[in-house]
């Protein structure tokens, strides 16, 4: 059933004739199928994800106003129980857990946003070029690089790269995560572009005198937007998790507060033995909920590229 086809019905006294029919047709083109955001929004999971993500973003952006203290402050009395001053108590080194949690949102969102973005961009450039020039040496080289990147064990690689840096800034974490996590997405984009490349509209663009670069990035790329979006959220999810894992291993940016560093500190300071379960529990939960939100949003995006999954009815 095509539901995108439309026709006016307020046909008050329509004469038979080309012109007016054409005018009616012109009216008709206005209505179209559901827009992508309404498809996503209509999915309950995606809606929940978007709302949670929105809350996190608000929390991150307005952290200075929401958090009772600076996240990096450690001059409180150590090991305080939760109270009005310290909603979730304090750490062994006198940091306010609630504030750290709220400020930590920033790091995770930053890592998610830019880690996802950079990984997606690398994947996009490599995948698009490789796919568009399928069969040429450019593709051979890029595919080879992609395949090698796929078989190299990622975690040891990230750990090694992190251990290499002198300055463990959040940006370096993002960089390392991005350059180690693009390969799978690049492969997906390559195969996608190979199918798209043979679409008539690409040939048509060639006949319109467009150059390869224009064709790849202006004609083909927009058609892959749902895949790219899905890739972005996937990469962002991975990046957030990776940052937490790295920080947990003590390889993160310890000068800013992130949930991973909180977990690391908690684990190092023997939070388990001292029974400081809030310290251990809360950052992980915040992380889990954020990743869940990402995943839920991706559910919605999957619906765009795969109508089979739309939960109609």
């Amino acid at each position, binding site marked *: 059933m095509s539901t995108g086809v439309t026709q006016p019905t307020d046909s008050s006294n329509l004469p038979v004739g080309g012109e007016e029919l054409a005018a009616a047709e012109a009216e008709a083109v206005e209505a179209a199928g559901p827009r992508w955001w309404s498809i996503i929004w209509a999915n309950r999971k995606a809606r929940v994800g978007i709302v949670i993500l929105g809350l996190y973003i608000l929390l991150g952006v307005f952290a200075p106003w929401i958090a009772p203290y600076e996240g990096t402050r450690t001059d409180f009395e150590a090991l305080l129980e939760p109270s009005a001053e310290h909603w979730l108590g304090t750490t062994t080194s006198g940091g306010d857990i609630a504030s750290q949690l709220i400020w930590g949102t920033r790091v995770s969102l930053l890592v998610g946003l830019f880690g996802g973005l950079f990984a997606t961009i690398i994947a996009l450039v490599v995948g698009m070029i490789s796919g568009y020039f399928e069969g040429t040496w450019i593709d051979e080289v890029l595919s080879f690089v992609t395949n*090698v990147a796929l078989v190299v064990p990622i975690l040891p690689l990230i750990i090694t790269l992190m251990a290499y840096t002198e300055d463990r800034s959040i940006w370096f974490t993002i960089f390392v995560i991005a350059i180690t996590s693009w390969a799978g997405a690049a492969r997906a984009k390559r195969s996608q572009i190979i199918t798209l490349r043979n679409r008539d509209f690409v040939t048509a663009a060639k006949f319109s005198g467009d150059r390869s670069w224009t064709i790849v990035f202006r004609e083909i790329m927009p058609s892959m937007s749902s895949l790219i979006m899905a890739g972005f959220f996937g990469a962002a999810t991975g990046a957030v998790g990776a940052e937490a*894992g790295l920080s947990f*291993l003590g390889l993160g940016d310890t000068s800013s507060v992130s949930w991973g560093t909180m977990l690391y500190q908690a684990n190092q300071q023997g939070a388990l033995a001292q029974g400081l379960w809030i310290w*251990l529990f809360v950052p992980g939960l915040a992380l889990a909920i954020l990743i869940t939100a990402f995943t839920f949003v991706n559910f919605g995006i999957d619906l765009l590229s795969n109508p089979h999954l739309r939960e109609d009815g």
Partner: protein
Amino acid sequence: MRYFLRRIGFFLATLWAAVTLNFIIPRLQPGDPAEIMFKKLQGRDAELDPAKIEALRAMLGDPAGKNLWEQYWNYLGSLSRGELGLSYTYFPYDVATVIGVALPWTLVLVGTTLLISFVVGTLLGAFAAWRRNTRFDSIVTLGSTFIGTLPAFWLALLILFAFGYVLGWFPTAGGYDASTPGWNAEFIGDAIYHSILPASVLLITGPIGWILGMRNTMIMNLGEDYVRLARAKGVPDTQIALRYAARNALLPSITGLALALGSMLGGQILIEQVFDYPGLGRLTAQAIDNKDYPLLQALLLFTIVGVLLANLIADMLYGILDPRARKAQS
């Protein structure tokens, strides 16, 4: 034939690239293994005794002494002879022996949980797809989505905290305790007892991917014409679910399983760390930490070869399972 040559050519080229990367990456790290080993042995705050550091350098060989090319050729040379070198950390044991000790732990723990996760996940996924949009489906998809997003190491910490520390039901570290490794009931029981917590983490997070993957492919397959035709044929529902939709949806999962089994050799670094489990993942972490180049190289090589072989096997498996792929290959 051509397909095979291509596959093998690719295999060798990737192997070379990976082996070279494998050589380069550890050397990107700053630090002298002898100094690091010294600090490891003496503790962080210790007198820097030059005599001891020199002795260690003499023992481990001084990587700073040779140029990189020379090291690279030596590395390739000994690799081709199957020599992986002596571990720094476990000096004078050679890395093959060291890996041999850790391998069974990872194989058994990760392998078993992977297979169980695969079976359980695939079944749940198939059932959820079949009962799509029912309460069961929502619970399975929502539940697995949420659990799947829990950071595994955090989950491990929580489980360790609850069952290891608070309740004290399970040991908090190690792969076994008082028993002597070997084929004796005491040891096997001991090892199982120790593996329950790490295994439970892997079993909680493991099936998620299989569930969602299977559910999605199966839903797509259920929309295919041959499934509709099967309905029109009057094939009973369970048969449609199993013999038509599930069978076909299983193909990508099976190749996925082959790949997962390949990458299993990397171990589960974070989980093994949390539970202090004596597998390959923890060994990898140690090797990185100790700048144990020979060990780290061997471990990475092991993983890479595992993944590459798994890729090869997955390709061929797919060829066997899916006649369409067979044609595409020839």
